[in-house]
């Protein structure tokens, strides 16, 4: 993975840059010691590392504006960072960049239950947003699996999803407003406690722009009352084709579960060895969850169980109580950790039309043999968001490259069947050079034109999202 060569003129001015940043921030908010900047050398895509020039941890929006203004004036690249949980390298620094971390900004600014929103600083973690409202029975719906650690800032940058978005949508569907600072230090408010935009939908444009248009410091998020209850069922099948058909039939029957999760045999075997959730050994396992009162759940599950039973399952298990529900989710929730026990892995997140599921799984199996690398599949089946986990050995020379090559082939396949490169993790650096597979030059040009408007000098997280060759003339300007 190539990153642009650092700007020598920026590197040579490190002392002046740090000094100016210190003049607007608290002493401990500027980290420039080489040993300490290592803490910011990568995010959760740990295969790529590079310590930044320095890291800053502003305490409020005004400080963010001051930092950006200085960097803008001095021509210094900036890489925004939430909690550093990106699997796509969204927060990977370059040696000439300032890491702007929002971790210190984690306060709740306002909670309003009548109008059903919460306003937070974006360094706050996803789960602690729900934590702030759950005593009143409310929750924040998007639930990426890193929700314990990931920050709202990163959720907005990547338009993060989660297991329950079949019903509740992803970040962009739950974001009502934000405060943002552009690269030149301008502070702006977009949206608010009302719905929809009175002009162009800039809120929708900024959500998912991977920290390339501005640094979002505050967010107004929609909160919902928790459902009365939720209950999962587990079903096992002898083939992924049949499981895929069950998913389609459930959706067509008019039931809208909150989640439909899918795991294949390699993944089931790994999680069983690790978490011992008591899953059946089969080719395809589905977990389907519905919500409501007890009676409502019974009614919906009855329908779902009938559909499931008509497809000759090897196992059909309904949770009778909270304990059993937890056991059903246990394996799914520990799937990534379980795969990690076997080996290093790379997690992809291409999305495909649900109808292509059996074909794509079959092709991934064939490719696994061709590349000689094992792969397990665990994903959100209701919306076609796949998560193939390719196992490799980071200590074996050439294995990472082989794994990346395999990954790229899977993502190309996703695009070929009518899907996309990334459903919820973002492009970052990981999928940057594959963007040409999904988009024609004019499609990318239109997107880059948007960045031209917000950040004409291309200083903000510029080496991400677009193939380096495609963005070169803009970054060099």
């Amino acid at each position, binding site marked *: 993975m190539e990153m642009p060569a650092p700007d020598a003129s920026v590197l040579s001015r490190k002392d002046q840059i740090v000094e100016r940043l210190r003049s607007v921030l608290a002493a401990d908010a500027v980290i420039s010691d080489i040993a300490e900047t290592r803490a910011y050398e990568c995010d959760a895509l740990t295969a790529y590392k590079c310590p930044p020039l320095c890291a800053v941890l502003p305490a409020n929006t005004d400080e963010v504006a001051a930092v950006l203004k200085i960097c803008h004036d001095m021509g210094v690249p900036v890489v925004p960072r939430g909690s550093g949980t990106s699997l796509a390298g969204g927060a990977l620094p370059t040696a000439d960049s300032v890491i702007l971390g929002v971790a210190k900004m984690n306060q709740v600014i306002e909670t309003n*239950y*009548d*109008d*059903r929103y919460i306003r937070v600083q974006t360094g706050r973690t996803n789960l602690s947003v729900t934590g702030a409202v759950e005593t009143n029975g*409310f929750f924040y719906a998007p639930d990426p699996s890193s929700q314990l650690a990931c920050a709202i800032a990163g959720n907005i940058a*990547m*338009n993060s*999803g989660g297991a329950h*978005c079949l019903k509740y949508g*992803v970040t*962009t*569907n739950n974001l009502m407003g934000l405060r943002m600072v552009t690269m030149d230090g301008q502070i*702006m*408010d977009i949206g608010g*406690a*009302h*719905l*929809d*935009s*009175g*002009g*162009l*939908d*800039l809120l*929708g*444009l900024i959500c*998912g*722009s991977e920290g390339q248009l501005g640094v979002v410091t505050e967010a107004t998020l929609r909160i919902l009352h928790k459902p*009365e209850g939720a209950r999962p069922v587990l079903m096992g099948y002898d083939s992924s084709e049949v499981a895929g058909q069950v998913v*389609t039939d459930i*959706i*067509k029957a*008019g039931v*809208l579960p909150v989640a439909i999760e899918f795991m294949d045999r390699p993944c089931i075997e790994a999680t069983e060895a690790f978490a011992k959730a008591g899953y059946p050994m089969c080719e395809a396992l589905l977990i389907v969850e519905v919500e*409501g*009162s007890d*009676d*409502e759940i019974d009614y*919906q599950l009855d329908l779902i169980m009938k559909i499931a039973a008509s497809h000759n399952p090897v196992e059909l298990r309904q949770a009778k109580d909270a304990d059993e529900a937890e056991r059903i989710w246990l394996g799914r929730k520990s799937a990534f950790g379980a795969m990690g026990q076997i080996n290093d892995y790379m997690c992809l997140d291409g999305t495909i*039309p*649900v109808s292509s599921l059996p074909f794509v799984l079959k092709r991934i199996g064939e490719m696994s043999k061709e590349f000689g690398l094992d792969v397990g599949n665990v994903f959100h089946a209701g919306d*076609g*968001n796949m998560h193939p986990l390719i196992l490799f050995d980071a200590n074996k020379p050439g294995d990472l490259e082989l794994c990346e090559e395999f990954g790229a082939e899977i993502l190309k396949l996703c695009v070929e069947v*009518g*899907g*996309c490169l*990334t459903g*919820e993790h973002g*492009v970052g650096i990981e999928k940057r050079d594959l*963007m040409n597979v*999904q*988009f*024609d030059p*004019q*499609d990318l040009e*239109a*997107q880059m*034109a*948007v960045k031209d*408007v917000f950040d004409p000098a291309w200083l903000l997280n510029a080496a991400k999202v677009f193939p380096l060759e495609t963005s070169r003339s803009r970054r060099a300007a």
Partner: protein
Amino acid sequence: MKPQTEAELAEIIAGANGPLHITGGSTRPIGRTKGAALSTAGLSGVTLYEPGALTIVAKAGTPVTTIEAELAKENQRLAFEPMDHRGLLGTTGEPTIGGVVAANVSGPRRIAVGACRDFALGVRFVDGSGTIIKNGGRVMKNVTGYDLVKLICGSYGTLGVLTEVSLKVLPNVETTGCVLLHGLDDATAIAALSKALGSPFEATGAAHLPNGIDGVSVTMIRIEGFEKSVTYRAEKLRDLLKGFGEATIRIGSEKDWASVRDVSALADQKGDVWRISTKPSDAAALTAVLGATAVQYDWGGGLIWALMPEGADLRAKLGACDGHATLIRGKADTSTFHPEPAPLAAITTGLRAKFDPRGILNPGMMT
């Protein structure tokens, strides 16, 4: 001009030497613009429908009724419930799906499931230079690159002319129920709606009609789903709202919501029609200072439809508020769309200059 293909449309725009007035079915004459008429009605037809994947793709000029008929065959629907503006605006013609997306048109269910923009998965459009651009796709989860789908949705043809849209659809429901409260004043009604929307009982509509049908105000909460569940939740809501008076429950009441959606209450009355999106708990106080002839609240109070005396500048009376006001019908001597604060206006101008450098697509429309 009425091109029959996307390529033909692109050629027309590339070769245009003056402003173009883009239309779909011409049923929503919102905003003021001038230019040679360019209709997308010739680009028509459903190109792909996958009920099991909850997605439909259609050319921009496809009539909404065609799409709804296709979906009905599989017992599915456009869940964002696009408003039909014909009654309110006195227009004829056939609403198109491209027009719905271009104006981000939603209905009462927006409060629960999201707006048109939340269901828009992908677009193809021609920008002001005649370049064909695609963004998004036909899958429900997609964060590949910038979300230009949202930017185009609600841009009223000013950034590009839609040629194809891809939408998420949802299953139809078995039953619709309605919980009704009577005789509440605006502020109390909105408090009741907030209470319902803040409950676990999943209201999919929350409206207040101050004039009701016979002069007595009516506050309406919609519940949808399987029959047993609708009855259960309707009863729960009635209990929850006891403090607001004795609620009545009506099961099977879709028609009432069509008239809320289309703002029928204001349709045949003389005057200007304004649409205000605001924070629900501010709504009653805002309305009190407007001097409106009639109002309707939707979205739990967050959407105010106000009938104003002809020519009155509602925005001047509204003052600073959390939200925005759009002139939907009428001749008030003010901008149609809400003026943006300076930093946002600069970005909007910058984006327009990129997507339509010659300023020929519906010029002046969104001012």
